[in-house]
């Protein structure tokens, strides 16, 4: 009996010892055939691709048919699309701002003519080939345009609908002609950004969606999708036919880790070597505490603006003085400092243009709206409101009570709501919180206009200004636009529409900027909504990754992954 007990103890001790031994010696698990991402096999700089890099991905894309409406998540672009789809333009740092630069898909900058119709001529780099060795040609541009402009269930047809034809007579030259009077200012975002250029020789005449929604083997970028293990990870391997700088790591695995805390812990243990988390209070707090062996980049120079969106058509926010009073009741800098002060972001946004399109707008348009309780009292009293015994303004027996809605479960937004609630109460305005799922908010509430205040971010996926889609009166959801308009705030200022339409259609950047600045000032004057904060991007990576790692507002920290290397 005693011997038997001793044997069991010995076995248990042995098992624990074995686990510790395995943990201490990274090479032992390699022998058993399992991958060890935390101890990547690395090669000296300049050697052929080697090593396995594991990165965290916060969300899993729903599908990889980038043209279809199921492919709306940015993580789809960051994990697969930008690494496998050739794109006409890259988004590069240009001095202090971001700009378009012709990519290596092109033989040079495209030529643009604007009269009588807008025509863009793309010369394709003769070295550009798909991963099967077939050259990328103008037929691919034509196929891409046709699929987007004429397809069903397309994520967005913006810009492609304006194109009348794509001439593919010369395989090395794609001539894109826009419809008369339908010129498109942000033309550089076409055949790039979200969609890229698609291989007609593989997909023409076939069901594109069926062939691509769960991943695809072909590539026109530095990486190929080796495997998409739904719910678990996606693996990329180098595309050896890529005509640009070839990938230096033999395998990149994006692990889907939806929980932010788990992402950070995985980074701390070396299970993943890079994270790109949402700027939530949890992640900001963890950064404040410090992460070992980590390098990072935080920037507020992004494509996102979080704002307090106001329903201009719903009482009492249909009154300009009430909207202005709300703006004067809020200390926006205090909110931003509380949310992102640790990252060095302390100032509120003063424009609805995200920082990456700053050169087009008046980035100080809302600067006049700062905390001023005397101004709140003056505006509300002037509009017929009087403070009640409970300290809340009322008019005609009705309290100045507003309800805010945002995406339930988002810590940052819930914290913002709590701060807003306190600040507004101090100014005599009651605010109730009634959050919903993202699906309900964006699918129903905003479309139907059954809200007063809403808190969410507007994100640009290109470098062009484009507020018409959310501010022009023609885009208020209505029967006329099949309820597909995105002017959820129901902003309807007649003088604003032509300004924003010009910004969308003109290819003269100076004219676009001039109109956008006027539009910004008009919107601020009417206080159509209240910009709060630029959402910072947070990129954190292990010092085991070498290369020029930095953030890109559109393609995230992964934009130049083919140039990265791993050190032992």
């Amino acid at each position: 009996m005693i011997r038997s007990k001793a044997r069991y103890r010995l076995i248990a001790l042995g098992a624990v010892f074995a686990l510790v031994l395995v943990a201490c010696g990274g090479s032992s698990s390699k022998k058993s055939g399992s991958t060890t991402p935390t101890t990547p096999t690395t090669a000296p700089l300049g050697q052929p691709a080697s090593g396995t890099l594991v990165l965290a991905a916060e969300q899993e894309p729903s599908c990889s048919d980038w043209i279809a409406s199921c492919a709306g998540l940015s993580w789809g672009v960051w994990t697969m699309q930008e690494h496998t789809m050739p794109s006409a333009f890259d988004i590069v740092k240009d001095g202090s701002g971001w700009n378009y630069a012709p990519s290596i898909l092109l033989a040079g900058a495209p030529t643009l003519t604007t009269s009588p119709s807008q025509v863009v001529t793309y010369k394709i780099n003769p070295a550009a080939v798909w991963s099967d060795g077939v050259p990328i040609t103008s037929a691919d541009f034509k196929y891409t345009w046709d699929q987007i402009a004429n397809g069903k269930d397309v994520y967005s047809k913006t810009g492609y609908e304006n194109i009348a034809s794509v001439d593919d007579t010369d395989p090395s030259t794609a001539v894109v002609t826009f419809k008369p009077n339908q010129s498109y200012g942000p033309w550089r975002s076409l055949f790039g950004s979200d969609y890229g250029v698609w291989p007609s020789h593989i997909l023409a005449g076939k069901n594109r969606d069926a062939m691509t929604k769960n991943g695809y083997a072909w590539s026109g970028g530095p990486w190929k999708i080796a495997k998409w293990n739904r719910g678990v990870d996606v693996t990329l391997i180098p595309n050896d036919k890529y005509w640009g700088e070839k990938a230096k790591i033999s395998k990149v695995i994006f692990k889907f880790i939806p929980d932010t805390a788990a992402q950070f812990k995985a980074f701390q243990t070396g299970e993943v070597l890079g994270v790109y988390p949402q700027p939530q209070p949890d992640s900001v707090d963890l950064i404040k505490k410090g992460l070992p062996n980590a390098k990072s980049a935080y920037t507020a120079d992004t494509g996102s603006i979080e704002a307090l969106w106001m329903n201009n058509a719903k009482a009492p926010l249909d009154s300009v003085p009430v909207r202005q009073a709300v703006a004067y009741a809020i200390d926006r800098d205090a909110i931003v400092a509380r949310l992102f002060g640790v990252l060095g972001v302390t100032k509120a946004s003063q424009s609805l243009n995200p920082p990456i399109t700053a050169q087009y707008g008046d980035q100080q348009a809302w600067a006049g709206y700062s905390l001023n309780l005397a101004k709140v009292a003056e505006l509300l009293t002037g509009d017929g409101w009087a403070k009640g015994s409970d300290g809340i303004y009322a008019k005609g027996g009705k309290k100045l009570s507003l309800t805010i809605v945002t995406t339930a479960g988002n810590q940052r937004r819930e914290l913002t709501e709590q701060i807003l609630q306190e600040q507004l109460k101090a100014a005599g305005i009651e605010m109730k919180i009634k959050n919903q799922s993202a699906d309900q908010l964006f699918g129903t509430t905003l479309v139907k206009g059954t809200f007063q205040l809403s808190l969410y971010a507007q994100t640009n996926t290109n470098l062009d200004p484009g507020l018409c889609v959310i501010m022009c009166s023609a885009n208020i959801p209505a029967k006329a636009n099949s309820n597909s308009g995105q002017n959820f705030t129901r902003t309807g200022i007649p003088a604003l529409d032509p300004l924003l339409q010009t910004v969308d259609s003109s290819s003269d950047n100076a004219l676009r900027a001039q109109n956008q600045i006027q539009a910004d000032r008009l919107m601020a004057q009417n206080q159509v909504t209240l910009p709060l904060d630029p959402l910072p991007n947070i990129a954190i990576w292990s010092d085991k990754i070498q290369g020029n790692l930095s953030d890109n507002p559109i393609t995230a920290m992964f934009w130049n992954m083919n140039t990265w290397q791993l050190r032992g």
Partner: protein
Amino acid sequence: MLSFLGRRVLFTIPVVLIASFVLFIFVRATFDPTAQLRSSHADSASVAREKERLGLDRPVVVQYGDWLGKFVHGDWGQSERTREPVFGMIRRALWYTVQLIFWGILLSATVSIFVGVYSAVKQYSPLDYTFTGLAFVGLALPPFWFGLIAIEFLAVQPVNWFHLQEPIFSFVGLHSGDSTGFNLDYVRHLALPVLTLTVQIIASWSRFQRAAMLDVLQSDYIRTARAKGVPRRQVIVKHGLRNALIPLVTVMALDIGALFGGLIITETIFSIPGMGRLFYESLLAGDATVLVAWTVVTALFIVAFNLLADVLYGVLDPRVRMA
């Protein structure tokens, strides 16, 4: 025995039908299968066409009948979020959840029975008090908290304390990188989620087992066996444990059924794409087709394991079969 089994199975059929009908109505009333299409700026004609295709323009009872017919033939529709066949999505998620449940139940049953029997046999001993105290602590530990604590102290901190090259236990998914199958890597990934899953179960089952064992040990036939000189080990294991297991087996079967849909937090913390995470993601996206199938499959498991509990009870205790 066969007629007992037949009766139980027959009773199950209306339960399944009623449950599936109620769940179908509930999901249809709460989520709109065309919401995704509408939010992708489709025109009203497209939405109307989609409603017609999905049969949403028909009475809900007709919709249910149509859905049930397809469901039993394995056609569970297509996810509005991922465009994948729902059958495949649920099968894939079930595989991950089944792995967690299998190992979790194996560990829980082993530990709980051992602890329960020991506590009953050595009632009021220091170890019994220790187990009792630990059981109450275990019952009070919320899985989301325990999971994060387990990650911190069993995975993250040991790397710093012992300067390890990699953590002893991993906590992202069930394998690292390209590793597959049953190997050491799998065990290292499985340890923490299984521990998180089992803490509350062990706490609860061990208390149950202790109470059942105490009841049995105080019964007349055990006294008789002891009086007849049956060895102590044989009295405890053969006569005591065998009978004390009957109520535990019932509780186990009921708990296992509920686990198929109840691991949302564990699966999210440990990035395991099982049934819980599928539900959570589908709920956030308002993916009605997945939600209908998910709720019905989960209900089916609960009903099936209830049936199993009934049958096992009948097998273990002949008096139940006679009733």
